[in-house]
């Protein structure tokens, strides 16, 4: 510890260079945190490993091929099924097509909705009020805040997949994993468009337990194998992963980007340390001449490199925490609003990013430190004269 002030003073002997290096570490660190947060968000498991016992059932070919209502009835009869409901992507528009007004709208069965999505809870109003009003709307808490809506307010949606003008009244507000969607009764569109009644984008199934979940998936697939609408049943997690995979291998892309950024930090810190030791060849030789052992010099140089990385990462962390609420707000007010509820500070991601940056910082100091302690003292002293 008695060498720490010495390390600090050396670190800031060229203030401009040190500050620029800190900036060069800070920014990649910030982006690493951001990428890590997105990956963590995609990997997030709200059940914390217990499993939600939810099964997503969709047409084997594509989402665009609807499933018939008879499938829902057959699934409800299967042993191990706690509840099942239709799930229709409504699309449409609210006010206009601007990004600000984009959010997800679904037609579902209000009677069993909270049995299936049991992690969600009513935050305002009541489930009963929503269920008892055919045009009742269940709204995510984020949307309430975003648009300043209140209970009892009328919301008009204009359909495109399901043509027509639909007026809804906000009857309840929910809080849960995705707080940026609205839900209404499937019967609304069934009655408005009777010719298309009983067609579902997909069916959500809640199994009684984990064993039933495992058992039901192949049974549902087999049950409709030879029907006109064969299905693909999968766990909620598989469903989400496949959905994300539509964007390509996002996680691999983000992780590759993280590796590139770590390499950038490594090169910047290594360059700074190489410059710092090169201009101090004589000074380091003098220290060794007056008795500083090789190990101590090595430790001092590595300490400098590590401190540089620690300061850069700490500044990046502070910036990240400072800007995160604004970033979340930006996502909330964008068409990606559905992601905003899963977008939170993941302490393990930040800790891993911090550790990675510090390790890279230490690594960056390794080669200059080894070269410095291996140079003969007499050569180092001579380089001045």
């Amino acid at each position, binding site marked *: 510890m*008695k060498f720490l002030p010495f390390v600090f003073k*050396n670190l800031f002997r060229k203030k401009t260079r040190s500050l620029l290096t800190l900036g060069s570490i800070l920014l990649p660190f910030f982006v690493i945190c951001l990428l890590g947060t997105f990956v963590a968000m995609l990997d997030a498991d709200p059940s914390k490993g217990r499993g939600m016992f939810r099964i997503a059932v969709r047409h084997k070919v594509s989402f665009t091929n609807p499933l018939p209502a008879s499938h829902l009835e057959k699934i409800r009869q299967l042993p191990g099924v706690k509840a099942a409901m239709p799930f229709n992507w409504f699309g449409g528009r609210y006010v206009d097509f601007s990004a600000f007004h984009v959010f997800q709208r679904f037609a579902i069965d209000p009677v069993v909705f909270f049995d299936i999505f049991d992690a969600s809870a009513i935050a305002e109003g009541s489930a009963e009020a929503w269920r008892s009003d055919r045009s009742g709307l269940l709204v995510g808490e984020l949307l309430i805040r975003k648009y300043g809506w209140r209970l009892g307010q009328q919301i008009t949606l204009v359909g495109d997949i399901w043509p027509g003008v639909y007026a809804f009244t906000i009857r309840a507000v929910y809080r849960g994993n995705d707080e940026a969607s609205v839900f209404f009764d499937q019967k609304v569109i069934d009655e408005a468009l009777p010719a298309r009644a009983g067609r579902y984008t997909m069916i959500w199934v809640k199994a009684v337990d984990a064993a039933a979940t495992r058992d039901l998936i192949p049974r549902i697939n087999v049950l409709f194998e030879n029907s006109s609408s064969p299905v693909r049943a999968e766990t909620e997690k598989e469903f989400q992963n496949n959905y994300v995979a539509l964007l390509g291998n996002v996680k691999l892309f983000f992780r590759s980007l993280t590796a590139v950024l770590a390499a950038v930090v490594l090169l910047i810190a290594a360059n700074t340390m190489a410059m710092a030791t090169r201009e101090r060849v004589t000074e380091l030789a*003098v220290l060794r*001449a007056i008795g500083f052992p*090789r190990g101590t010099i090595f430790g001092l140089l590595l300490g400098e490199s590590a401190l540089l990385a620690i300061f850069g990462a700490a500044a990046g962390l502070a910036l990240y925490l400072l800007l995160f609420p604004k970033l979340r707000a930006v996502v909330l007010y964008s068409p990606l609003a559905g992601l905003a509820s899963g977008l939170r500070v993941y302490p393990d991601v930040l800790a891993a990013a911090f550790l990675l940056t510090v390790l890279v910082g230490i690594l960056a100091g390794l080669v200059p430190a080894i070269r410095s302690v291996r140079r003969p003292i007499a050569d180092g*002293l001579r380089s*001045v*004269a």
Partner: protein
Amino acid sequence: MSAISPGTPGTPGTPLIRIDSLVKQYTRDTQVLTVLDNLSLTVDEGDFMALMGPSGSGKTTLLNLIAGIDRPTSGRIVVGEKEVSSMSEAALAKWRSANIGFIFQLYNLVPVLTAFENVELPLLLTNLNRARRRKQAELALSVVGLTDRMDHYPRQLSGGQEQRVAIARAIATDPKLLVADEPTGDLDSRNGEEILVLMERLNSEFKKTIVMVTHDPKAASRAHRLVHLDKGVLKEDVKAERGKAVGMAAAISVSST
């Protein structure tokens, strides 16, 4: 480690440095360059020895070998009880920190540290606590007359003051032997004179054995003994009395050119 204090005279004729058949060669490509050629020399405790000779005569190489920062090709160097020519790198570092004080031509202070912190540097390698280190560094700075400049950085000091801080750093651990490589080489005559007076005082009052490399006859004249090297060979080894040394040093200096 003892506190810096006026020392007791060493036993006259007690050798502190014994150099026996010392050879130092460098290899450049296929060419072998002999810098020191079968050199034998003894330096007694309390000696103030000036090493003179033309450039390339091996003065600095000999100084580095005595101080244990370079290795001989063959031969022995014993300083005190230790054969430095056969010690390990780690043992040498520890030995140097306790037994050798270095004074360089360009002072070689650490620019980001204050005068006090520069003097404290070698003390960081000891087991002294913060308070003892502070006391010892202040004492060293008081010996060189710079207690009022403790908090100044090297860039805020004159060349002479910087060299005095370097001398304070050299004596901070109270070593027996001071090795100085052209200590006045970068100073004007007034500051050079001040440094020489200080070195004389360290030798006479604090009983430091001093080996000093110099080209300057005036600096050499302060020494009690003049050793003249030429092409790695000991050409002259003269014990000089004060007053006569000036002429002898000048003569060696002239013969070196």
